[in-house]
């Protein structure tokens, strides 16, 4: 990156922007960098930065979390999950555990992990115990899960996979009548794994400016400048402002593991509904490690209540970039990180949590 953040801001302020220009990001890491650096306040007022579907924990279906809770409570297993999944509440009566954390308090063996490698080590260290790894994540996090399967896992470890692809959610928004944004900043680490090419549709099919960004202010401002300039010059292309990591075709080993171990399927997004070809499930060759097949009685069809967020919670609107976090009535009143109502206030990648941590308070 040749310019400093200050120099990029100067360039941005010199652009002849006359109308509102809305740029969506789809990565919790991007949103955190933007908020912590205070980029919104530093940009020209015409430029609006909108947090979009960038939080895998926020869109993890309520029924998957419920399934993990029930498995942990009723089976002789150890349930492993990434830490920020543990406090996400589900819709049950107040007498029942509403989160994995509460299930742990009720006696279930639930442990937070930071890496799939930990799941492997724990399962190997106790071969007579069953372990279930509840793995929610976008492509960057799902690829290591695929690698874990390809490298080989013991029989006493199974995967409850809730993996999602990022671009189909953006595609769904762009196919709708009201996408709500004029340009896209594409996620840097998703593109590192999958390659930048999968974002080409934004430019080619929808004629919107797009740029892949990294996580520094410099890279994010470079991408912001790029999409503004593309629009002003009426010359749209997919820019790569994170070339140090994002290579053409992405990470070939990771993509090979994803193809070998997982299949792309239609998938439910919490509060949003089913998005075609937007999720991962275990490939038939790896069925014996699929927790959904190992414990079929917990994969309850009657629990599939697409669109459900807690009452009054606007997480779904926030995830889709239709509302800003502080436009939700619960933000900062009934819903705070210590006592979250919706998943966007729980996860480190949730826009509500990020805005709260960044000091944004209710209007």
């Amino acid at each position, binding site marked *: *990156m040749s310019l400093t953040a200050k120099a990029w801001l100067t360039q941005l302020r010199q652009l002849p922007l006359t109308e509102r220009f809305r740029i969506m990001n789809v*990565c*919790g*890491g991007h949103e955190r*960098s933007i908020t*912590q*650096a205070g980029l919104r306040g530093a940009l020209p007022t015409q430029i609006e930065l909108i947090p979009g579907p960038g939080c*895998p*924990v926020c869109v993890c279906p309520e029924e998957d979390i419920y399934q993990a809770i029930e498995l942990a409570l009723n089976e002789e297993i150890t349930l492993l999950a*990434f830490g*920020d999944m543990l406090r996400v509440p589900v819709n049950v009566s107040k007498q029942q555990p509403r989160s994995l954390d509460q299930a742990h308090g009720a006696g279930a063996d639930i442990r937070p992990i*930071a*890496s*799939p*490698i*930990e799941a492997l080590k724990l399962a190997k260290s106790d071969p007579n115990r069953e372990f279930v790894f509840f793995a929610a*994540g*976008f492509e*960057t*996090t799902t*690829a*290591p899960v695929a*690698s874990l399967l*390809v*490298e080989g896992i013991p029989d006493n470890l199974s995967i409850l996979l809730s993996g999602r692809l990022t671009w189909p959610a953006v595609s769904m928004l762009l196919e709708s009548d009201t996408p709500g944004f004029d340009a896209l900043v594409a*996620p840097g*680490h*998703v593109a*590192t*794994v999958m390659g930048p090419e999968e974002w080409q549709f934004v430019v080619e099919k929808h004629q919107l400016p797009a740029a892949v960004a990294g*996580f*520094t*202010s410099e890279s994010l401002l470079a991408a912001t400048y790029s999409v503004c300039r593309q629009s002003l010059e009426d010359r749209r292309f997919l820019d790569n402002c994170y070339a*140090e*990591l994002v*290579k053409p075709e992405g*990470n*070939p*080993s*990771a993509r090979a*593991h994803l193809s070998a171990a997982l299949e792309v399927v239609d998938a439910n997004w919490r509060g949003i509904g089913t998005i075609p070809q937007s999720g991962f499930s275990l490939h038939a060759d790896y069925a014996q490690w699929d927790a959904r097949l190992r414990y079929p009685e917990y994969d309850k069809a009657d629990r599939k209540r697409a669109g459900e967020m807690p009452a009054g919670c606007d997480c779904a609107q926030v995830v889709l970039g239709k509302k800003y976090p502080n436009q939700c009535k619960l933000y900062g009143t009934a819903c*705070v*990180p*210590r006592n979250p109502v919706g998943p966007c206030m729980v996860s*480190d*990648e949730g826009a509500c*949590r990020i805005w*709260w*941590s*960044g*000091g944004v308070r209710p209007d």
Partner: protein
Amino acid sequence: MCLGIPMQIKEIDGFTARCEAKGVEREVSLFMLQHEALATDDFVVVHVGYAIQKVSPQEAQSAWEIYDEMLTKMDPQTDA
């Protein structure tokens, strides 16, 4: 969860490496970088325990300068 941390490889044993950043050592899987020739002292970006890309020492250094800045701005009190 999409955060990637640049780390330096200290030792390689098959697809497992001992990596270091800021004096902290971690075991890192190189299984997702089988297509890269990796050696001791190389830098990789690590996500949930897996190296996802090789980076130059300069890129690792500049990424850490930014992360240091971000970490100093993080105030745990505001998360309450």
